[in-house]
């Protein structure tokens, strides 16, 4: 392997030139089974205790924002799927809605509902992947197979709908490109019908398991104040006790039509984040159940032209992606290409809280904490 480029290690507010007798610096990643991709973590340890950390990222940087400036609005849409590649549908939704806002186009209700269903299914799929890998990191070998079994069903629905399983490019600016396939409702209903019992199954394995509780309770505590100061969003924020979800705060797609709860934790530890995400899956199921019953008929694409030239100006639009607030800040100069696309990646900003969460814990907890933030390096590095 090529020599990793040397980077100056720097722990803010800490003199690293002089190490105490028991202090060592160890390096985790970028090739490591539990860093969920090419994350590199430098840990400053006192014995086994972490007293400082630094995340070194950028190994997967592809310059997505730069590419956006050189593609037309439609051309850029598939690129966003490659950021959080385990929740491509959510990325696509965020981008499409942002451009629609910029264009001031209204999306037909049928498209909105189908978008909601697919996005919620994607949230379930993303959380399932998180649960499986997180449990695997903590040493539970079995949940990942159960999770993949259900995720497979969701991916099959995606595949039938748009032909792709992972990087779906499911939506188009202005609505949908494809009408739902015959049997879409039945497929979704069949999946949702017994998914609740499947969640019970995962919970039976973990929720009250003594070892699981010992490994997650009180680990990686993030207070509400810290979470807000660090800009943390999504399940991580909610587990710290802040009841905030963009689906409720600024309803987009068709979320204002459905009943659902926002699960909140109280301790802000890894266990609470686990519970919050489990409950979110149940709520996503609830949304889908309501949505699938009543898909309005009508057109699926709003009034957008083949050439998109938004009026000059700018817009910020964000959605509640599975990992947190996924925002797009798009500046238009009136041409067919965006002048600037800024993506606010939830993983990137949530990962910044890692240092706060990990201090004072043991090395073995680092793995649990990386898992609980639920990062995707494609999105962190863009």
């Amino acid at each position: 392997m090529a020599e990793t480029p040397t980077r100056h290690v720097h722990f803010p507010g800490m003199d690293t030139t002089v190490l105490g007798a028991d202090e060592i610096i160890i390096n985790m990643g970028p090739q490591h089974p539990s860093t969920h991709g090419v994350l590199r973590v430098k840990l400053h340890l006192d014995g086994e205790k972490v007293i400082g950390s630094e995340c070194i990222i950028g190994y997967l940087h592809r310059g997505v924002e730069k590419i956006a400036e050189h593609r037309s609005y439609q051309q850029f849409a598939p690129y966003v799927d490659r950021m959080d590649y385990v929740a491509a549908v959510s990325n696509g939704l965020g981008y499409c809605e942002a451009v629609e806002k910029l264009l001031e186009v209204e999306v037909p209700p049928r498209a909105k509902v189908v978008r909601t269903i697919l996005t919620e299914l994607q949230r379930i799929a993303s959380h399932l992947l998180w649960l499986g890998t997180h449990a695997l990191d903590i040493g539970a070998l079995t949940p990942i197979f159960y999770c993949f079994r259900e995720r497979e069903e969701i991916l099959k629905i995606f595949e039938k709908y748009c032909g792709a399983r992972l990087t779906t490019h499911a939506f188009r600016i202005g609505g949908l490109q494809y009408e739902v396939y015959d049997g879409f409702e039945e497929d979704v209903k069949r999946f949702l019908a017994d998914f609740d019992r499947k969640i019970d199954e995962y919970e039976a394995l973990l929720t009250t398991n003594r070892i699981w509780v010992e490994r997650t309770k009180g680990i990686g505590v993030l207070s509400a104040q810290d979470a807000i100061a660090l800009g943390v969003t999504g399940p991580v924020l909610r587990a710290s006790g802040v009841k905030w979800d963009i689906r409720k705060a600024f309803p987009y797609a068709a979320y204002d039509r459905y009943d659902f709860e926002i699960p909140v934790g109280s301790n802000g530890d890894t266990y609470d984040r686990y519970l919050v995400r489990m409950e979110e899956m149940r709520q996503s199921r609830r949304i889908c159940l309501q949505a699938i019953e009543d898909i309005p008929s009508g057109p699926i694409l709003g009034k957008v032209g083949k050439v998109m030239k938004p009026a000059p100006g700018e817009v910020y639009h964000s959605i509640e992606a599975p990992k947190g607030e996924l925002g797009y800040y798009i500046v238009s100069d009136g041409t067919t290409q965006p002048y600037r696309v800024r993506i606010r990646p939830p993983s990137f900003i949530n990962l910044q809280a890692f240092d706060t969460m990990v201090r004072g814990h043991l090395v073995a907890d680092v793995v649990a904490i990386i898992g609980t933030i639920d990062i995707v390096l494609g999105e962190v590095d863009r």
Partner: protein
Amino acid sequence: MDAVVEFLKPHLLPLLWAVVIVAVLPLVAGYIVLLERKVMADIQARLGPMRVGPHGLLQPIADALKLLLKEDIIPANADKWIFWIAPLISVTAAMLALSAMPFGPVFQIADLNVGLLFIVAVSSLGIFGIVLGGWSSNSHYALLGALRSAAQVVSYEVAVGMALVSGLLLAGTLSMRKMVEAQAEQGVWFAFLVPVGFFIYLVAGIAELNRAPFDLPEAESELVAGYMTEYSGFRWALYFLGEYTAMIVVSGIGTTLFLGGWLRPFPNVAAFDFLDYLPAVLFLALTGYCFYRAPKQPVPIQKAVMGLFGVLCLGITAALGWAVTLPAEAVARAGILGAFWFLAKVFLFLYSFMWFRFTFPRYRFDQLMRLGWHFLIPVSLVNVMGVGAALVLHRQAGWPLWQGLVLGTVVTLAVAAWLILVRQRRPVAAPSAGGEV
């Protein structure tokens, strides 16, 4: 010449058993691996190995061939000699421990009068294979795995020892054979007399084996593969062989001391004599299944292999059936049926090990140590005292033994409950100020 024959004569049968064990064990270990993969697949809602042979039945052989043919890589800065010899230590220690294991009233290499101590002593040597292998690899992951392993095994050996003592007090002997005989005499398996001791043995035994949920020395999400990280090919296979043999050893000790060894359930109750027919019936069913499935295999060779396994099962059925027809006092009958029951109980242990592995998450190292030192060891000490007190009451004051043992168990459980409560009162890391914003 005669003198030599005379000298060798008493050693011939043990020698035969030893050869059988050494020859068959790798195969058995291979099939335990297959079993583990199948059990894992079953728990994880999938099929497991299905390609090599019908239902993957030839997978172990394919694996063994592959491992034999693989390049033997020794890392550049490794300590060659120790790297070379470490896996051998593991395997040798584990196999040596089998030499005092009674697989039945007949099938035992040597019945030592310190049998149990011998097994414990020899199997504790296996740790050197792990520690030295980890050190010689010249890799941080391997070294950390080795260190964890050493600390863990030394800690849990105390709990294992204490749990064994609670059974030993009841048996009144260290000889493996006499332990089983003591259970036959008292008419009850010691697992029911000292349930706490049995439980502690089970937990600490898993920890001694470095198996999940105590598999920190090879925790793949933290240490890649622990002490085995740098090993490959046949040397790696030797570690595996050692590990699975150690599983058999731990299961064997547990079976002998707590589950009545080669005795069938209710050995002294004539009403349960029909259980003697169970082994033969079981294997007959297995034979039937094999022959039933054989024509349904897709490829001729798979049909043949399935048929072959059917014939194998038929052979075992015949042996078991023949044994049942023998008079009760025949050596062969006791030997064959005893071996069946012993292996069945060992299988029970192995299955539970696998079951735990695929159900539980992994402990953190400090939690593991705390569990060992703060919970298992004190509880096992109290348990030993309870058993001792029960014996004294039985012998001096004439109490029925079971009353004393129930009392001891109740006291032990009370202590355990107290320990758990104390542990839970420990403050959890700084709770955050939550609340809605």
